[in-house]
């Protein structure tokens, strides 16, 4: 979908320290509805910490996170999920002993309405609901991400690339408004990277999804290709923000990546 002018996610002046380590020093930015907004930066820049602050796993010492105009800084992660913020993790956080389908089903949790009594009896309401959500998962998610062949497989047994895909599937099952993707391409081979980049574009562009994406990624080729805007972090501070070409040319960014300069221009081949 076209990028709108409506601000969907707003982060203001986030400070986050772990003991003596200053992970974030007053980071602010806005993500517009319908955007692919990427966050780049060298290792340890604070990208993961920033995502954790947005989805509520960490509580920053200072700063504010607003979602669709409402302050959500005080909400718990599960409440932010109910608001429509979903995410994947840099180090996979899957339910390894469960099947692919059960992992994805958990993503439907907030949309299921059965209470204790109807879950205990199962017949009628809960059974109907289970079928409806199964149908949703099969039609919308498994089909989109091309994981039909592994739906009954135990996740822990799958190759890494497919596990990453299952995690995306689970995050998507939430039917989120914003999806935070923490290094979805890390550790994938070239073919898998292409697939994954296509999926990200799909969930951003397809009529059905139109999901805003916040993407943390080291693969500059993909980042510069698919992002609408890019923000660069270094040592917990924002050093640049703008369209991909602007950020690529920014002297601060080039300095931050000194020594790994070619990262900025060369795609993985």
């Amino acid at each position, binding site marked *: 979908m076209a990028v709108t002018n409506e601000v969907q996610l707003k982060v203001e002046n986030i400070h986050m320290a772990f003991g003596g380590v200053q992970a974030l020093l007053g980071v602010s930015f806005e993500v517009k509805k319908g955007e692919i907004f990427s966050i780049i930066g060298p290792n340890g820049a604070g990208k993961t910490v920033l995502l954790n602050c947005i989805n509520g796993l960490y509580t920053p010492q200072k700063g504010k996170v607003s979602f669709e105009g409402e302050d959500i800084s005080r909400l718990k992660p*599960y409440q932010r999920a109910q608001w429509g913020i979903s995410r994947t993790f840099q180090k996979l*956080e899957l339910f390894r002993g469960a099947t692919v389908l059960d992992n994805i089903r958990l993503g439907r*949790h907030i949309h299921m309405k059965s209470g204790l009594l109807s*879950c205990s009896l199962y017949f009628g309401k809960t059974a109907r609901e289970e079928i409806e959500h199964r149908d949703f998962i099969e039609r919308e998610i498994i089909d989109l991400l091309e994981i039909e062949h592994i739906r009954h497989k135990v996740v822990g047994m799958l190759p890494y690339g497919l596990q990453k895909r299952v995690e995306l599937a689970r995050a998507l099952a939430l039917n989120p408004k914003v999806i935070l993707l923490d290094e979805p391409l890390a550790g994938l081979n070239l073919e898998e990277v292409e697939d994954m980049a296509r999926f990200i574009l799909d969930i951003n562009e397809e009529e059905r999804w139109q999901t805003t994406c916040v993407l943390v990624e080291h693969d500059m080729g993909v980042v510069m290709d698919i992002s609408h805007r890019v923000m660069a972090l270094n040592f917990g501070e924002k050093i640049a923000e703008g369209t991909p070409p602007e950020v690529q040319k920014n002297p601060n960014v080039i300095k931050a990546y000194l020594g790994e300069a070619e990262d900025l221009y060369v795609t993985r081949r």
Partner: protein
Amino acid sequence: MSYRPCGVYHQFYRQDHAWWQTKFVWGKMIFLGIFIFVLFPKFAGMYLISVANVVGYTILSAMGVQLLIGYCGQITLGHAAFLAMGAYTCTLLMLQLHIPYPIAMIFGGVVGGIWSVLFGLPSARVKGFYLIMTTMAAQFLTVEFFITQYVSQIGGRGVAFSIPPGTVKIGPWMIRNDLDVYYLMAILVVIFTFIMANLGRSKIGRAWIAIRDNDIAAETMGVNIVYYKLLAFFVAGFFGGIAGAFWVTSLAAVSPEHFHFGWSLWLVGVILIGGVGNIHGVIFGSLFMTLIPEGLKFFIFILTQNPFFVNIMPFLPLLLEKFLFVKEAAFGLAIVLFLIYEPNGLSYRWWQIKNYFNLWPFSY
């Protein structure tokens, strides 16, 4: 994960969601039902019935432990406290207020559930070892302190509440002997299994399993962790309360020593041996933990009948007299052996055998 026999295809998701997916399995289950409700009570003697009642009581008691430990990952060492709350609530309501047994039993479940939530509250903050300590506190505060010191004094009856014959009846059905207890037990086991299995395959059970496996991911996916943990404590306590209220039927008198710490430990042993995280584990574990000691007792009894063995092993009659010690030693040994040789429990072996036959004659 289990495999369907080859050649079974589904057209609707409904079929894939069903418990018993082939006619063969339906047949097996119907046979099992006939066996439990007709054949066994008809042909088993009084001794076997009483053993079956202990197995059933163990299943009912261990179901809540399985829910907390196996499904939700909250280790509990004080489950007997909730059994006791259920048993005492039920007994007091019957004796003091003359409330009919089924209603008193449900009250027992609710009180057990609320009591359990009370001691589950720390689980919002603490995990693992510290939670074990708080659940142990539940055991000692409830049974050794609250019930022994205060509840037992109600009505001035002393330590035990004796239940006059004829008190326990469900409508016109008077529960008088072991056979009546057996039928009640069988019905409750079916209901518990039904509820547990349904919870396991719907929203609530999935949330519990998610918390057990990865609480960060669960919370990120919108699961209210504190709420679902407390819900687990409530349902487990409710199961416990009902189990305790059920056991009242086969006790002549309710007293604190029926709910001692050893029983809490025993229940954890049941699910460790049976298998953690599934209902089969509860059933296999209860069968194993009841039948093996009974078998052992029977074996020692046979030996004592023969003067030859008594001559070479003069301690045999003493063993029989003090069988409790043998039982506890066997319990310890069984746990150790299982943890070393069969850490997934009996139910895992069961899956393997079942899958083997489903896939037979091909091994993949």
